[in-house]
Each structure stands twice: as structure tokens, then as C-alpha cells.
């Protein structure tokens, strides 16, 4: 395997409703910033891959329009995943492993959720025969998982609120954060219930945004970045979707991915978890085997901003940034999609 690292990360400010710019327009300056950070011209990128969803964008081929933002000329080597952009990063990593002539990659993700109602729209990723016609929204599905955790004696509503309080507190140091602040658990427990036992603070905000990560291999990475965030392990796995066929207190695919990525092989300083709902944070810490001294979501995690389809990639960027700046030596990035932690990706990033 070649050594491949994240050498630059850029993201737009997380906004509840980006009124003026469309997806490609949000993305364009972010891509320019990432290239500038990496010290690369667009022509020096060997491979490009993006992640997005047509149903979130409200039109087919939404990724084609986004290509306008990155100047795909002369023709580029490029691909797209209908998935969170973390999977686009994975495809770049694979492309770089498979082909020694690919030394740099640009990954991007974008979403403008404010246009739709993601809570409802996401219902159409369920089983179209026996689930979608019911139109059970995603917060309700996550609430079924939250309740399962409580009933199994694995967590309480206070534990959920504590996760939110921690995230919002961490977000105070994140200049891109949409939600932040100091809240006590008792304060949070007075917030309105959306789908019991989940309250407002247990759920991610609606966010418009875009993010870009640049990868480089071996000597190229060393030349372009003083302290690249090396990808030491990366893996993704999936479980069946039907939540009635799963033990909702577990995320077996996250556990396998963490094991394959080698999370347990050393001390983890920081971890960024794509836990959309607070109960998922509790499940993931266990499945990934994160120790109590590991700082979870130093960026504020998903609760400070959730630019869906880019959210998982942001987790990679936030871990990498801290390694690049020398604030951490070893970090874990996690991404998920599907209801109740159905599909999970885990990566280990290191400064050495």
C-alpha cells in the first residue's frame, strides 16, 4: 500500500439557510481555498471525486452542475458517488492505490438542505415497498434507536443531552460552526421533544455547505505539507437496512470497519464521529473502542453543522486539520449513512 495523506481541507461556514448562492457557487470558493492551502493549481490535480444526492438537491444530475465550480478543463479524471463525500474520499484513496500515476486527488461534497425538508425527504431511502409508503421521518427512526438504548439500560436521556452539551461547547472554538454555546444538561432537557425520547438538541441542525479535501501520495504529500495527515487505515462496511431486523443498540458494521482500519493499534487522541443523533455517539464510542481520554468531536461534530453529503468528509477534514497543525498525533474519522448507523466508514489518521 502507498502512503497517502490529507494535505489540505477547506469548508464553507455552516449556515442554516444560504439564501444567495447555489451549490456550485458555494463550492467554488471552497475549492479555490483548498487548492491554495495545498499549494496546487487545478491542473495539478490527478483525480477528482465528489459525493452528493440528487434527492437532496431536488434534481437529477446535480453533481454535473457542481463540476462547473472546479473548472473541469482540459478534461479531468473524475468520478462521483451518490453518497456522502467520505465515500468519494475512499474512491480517491483506492484510485491512488491502484495507479501510481495518481499522486494528488481532490474530493468534494456539497448539500443545500434548506431547500427541502431532509427529515422527510430521507424517508425515500427506506424500503420502497414496505417502509417508504408509511413516510416515517428520520428523526422518528433515530428515536426508535434512542429508545432501544434506554430500554436496554445502556443510556439515559441525560446521557444524550450530555453529548449535545459537549458538542456545542467544543463548537465554540470552531469558526465555521452554525450552533455553539455553553449549555447544562438540565437546560437542554427543557428543550422541546421532536420525537420522544429525542429532543431538539439530540438532532443535527439543517445546514447548507460544501467542503473540499485534498489528498497526496508519498513524497508529493511531504513536499506540499509540513505535517501531512497520513491515512494509516480506512475501511467501510454495511448492515441490512430494515431497522426491525437489527439490534438497534449496536452498529456491527462500524465495529468491523474500526477493526479493519486499526483503531485499536494505538492511542487515539481525537475522534470526529458522524453521529447525527446523540444516541449514535454513545453507540459509536463503544463500537469503535474509543477510550475515555479520547477527545470526541473537537470541532463540535455534527451538532455544530450538518452539510449533508459533505458531513462525513468534514469529519476527515477536521481530524486532518488538527494533525496538520500538530494538535494531535493520531485521530479517527468516522462517516455514516442510512438509517440508524446502517453503513459506516472508519479511518485512522496519523501525523507520523
Amino acid at each position: 500500500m502507498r502512503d497517502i495523506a490529507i494535505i489540505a481541507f477547506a469548508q464553507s461556514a455552516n449556515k442554516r439557510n444560504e439564501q444567495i448562492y447555489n451549490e456550485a457557487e458555494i463550492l467554488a470558493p471552497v475549492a479555490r481555498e483548498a487548492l491554495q492551502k495545498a499549494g496546487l493549481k487545478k491542473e495539478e490535480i490527478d483525480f477528482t471525486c465528489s459525493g452528493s444526492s440528487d434527492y437532496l438537491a431536488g434534481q437529477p444530475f446535480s453533481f454535473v452542475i457542481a463540476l462547473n465550480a472546479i473548472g473541469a478543463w482540459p478534461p479531468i479524471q473524475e468520478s462521483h458517488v451518490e453518497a456522502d463525500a467520505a465515500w468519494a474520499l475512499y474512491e480517491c484513496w483506492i484510485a491512488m492505490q491502484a495507479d501510481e500515476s495518481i499522486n494528488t486527488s481532490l474530493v468534494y461534497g456539497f448539500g443545500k438542505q434548506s431547500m427541502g425538508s431532509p427529515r422527510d425527504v430521507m424517508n425515500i431511502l427506506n424500503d420502497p415497498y414496505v417502509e417508504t409508503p408509511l413516510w416515517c421521518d428520520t428523526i422518528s427512526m433515530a428515536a426508535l434507536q434512542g429508545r432501544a438504548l434506554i430500554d436496554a439500560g445502556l443510556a439515559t436521556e441525560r446521557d444524550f443531552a450530555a453529548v449535545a452539551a459537549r458538542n456545542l461547547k467544543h463548537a465554540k472554538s470552531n469558526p465555521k460552526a452554525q450552533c455553539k454555546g455553553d449549555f447544562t444538561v438540565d437546560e437542554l432537557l427543557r428543550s422541546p421533544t421532536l420525537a420522544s425520547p429525542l429532543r431538539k438538541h439530540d438532532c443535527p441542525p439543517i445546514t447548507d455547505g460544501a467542503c473540499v479535501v485534498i489528498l497526496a501520495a508519498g513524497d508529493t504529500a511531504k513536499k506540499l505539507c509540513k505535517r501531512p495527515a497520513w491515512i494509516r487505515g480506512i475501511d467501510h462496511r454495511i448492515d441490512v437496512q430494515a431497522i426491525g431486523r437489527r439490534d438497534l443498540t449496536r452498529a456491527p458494521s462500524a465495529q468491523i470497519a474500526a477493526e479493519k482500519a486499526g483503531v485499536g493499534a494505538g492511542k487515539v487522541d481525537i475522534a470526529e464521529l458522524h453521529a447525527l443523533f446523540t444516541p449514535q455517539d454513545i453507540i459509536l464510542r463503544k463500537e469503535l473502542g474509543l477510550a475515555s481520554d479520547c477527545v470526541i468531536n473537537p470541532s463540535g461534530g455534527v451538532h455544530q453543522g450538518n452539510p449533508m453529503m459533505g458531513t462525513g468528509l468534514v469529519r476527515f477534514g477536521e481530524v486532518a486539520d488538527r494533525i496538520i497543525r500538530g494538535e494531535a498525533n493520531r485521530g479517527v474519522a468516522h462517516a455514516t449513512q442510512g438509517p440508524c448507523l446502517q453503513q459506516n466508514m472508519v479511518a485512522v489518521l496519523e501525523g507520523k
Partner: protein
Amino acid sequence: MSEAQSTEKKPVTYINTPVAVKYDYTAGKATSDFMRAVAQGKILGNRCPQCNRVYVPNFLVCVQCAVPMGEPFEVPDSGIVLTFCIVNIKFYDQVLEVPYVSAYVLLDGTDLPLMHLVQECNVNDVRMGMRVKAVWKEELSPSLESIRYFKPTGEPDAALETFKEYL
């Protein structure tokens, strides 16, 4: 009433699952600027400072160079038909009467054709290189539908050699 109900004894072989999702669609800055101008009877374009091409509609970023485009300016509402097709097919959600001509119209002084209708002539008389001019509606709105269509001006056609590079 579904077929499943009318054939009570037959096993169910299919289900109806309508999907309708609503969006509060926003057009973005470049398109909004463009359409606001259309509502005043103007067509906007802008130039890339790097490749020097004029884009219509105006873009925020050059799709080729990925650098911010220059300030939008008004371009003429006349030009040539680069190429076209005559649409004869009917499909779901269609709003136009067939047959109609869907054409790439290259406005004078610009480098990117606009797709629009060509009317006021027999569909079979439309030609590549034919000179056309916009016919505007009386009531303008922020939509390209403010231009009813493009009509032939009667000027001589442009020779293929003069617009080959835009095909």
C-alpha cells in the same frame, strides 16, 4: 381505483407508491442576476478574465478556468442558430405544442449558445447559421419564458466556417 382492486382474486403483482417531494428552490446568484435582467427585457452575459470568453447566461465562476467571472453586461438579443432539432415527441409534464424547434442560439458577441425556441417560420425552414432575434412578451417576468421565441430576421445566413468552432 387501482387495477389490484378491480381484479380482486388475482395475486398482487405491483403497488402504487407515488413520491412527491417539495423544495423551496433557490436559483443562486448568477441565475438570479440573469433572470432579474430578463424581467427588464435584457439578456446578461459576462467575460472570463482568463480565457476571455463571453458566457450567456452570466456565470459566477468560469466553468473552464474556475476563476471568478467579470461583471455581467447586457448582450444583444440577436444572433444565429448554431444547430437545432425539431421536437415531435410528447412526454410526461410537457408544456409545449409539438412540433417545435429547440435551437442553440449564439447571440452576437458571445461565445456560449442559449437554448431557445425558433418560431414565426415553418419548422422545416429553420437552418444552421440562420439569423434570428428575440421576440419578447409584453409582460416580462424573471424567466426565459419572457422571450416568447426567436424569429428569423431575414438577413443572410452565416457561413458554417464562421461558427464551426461553437458546434
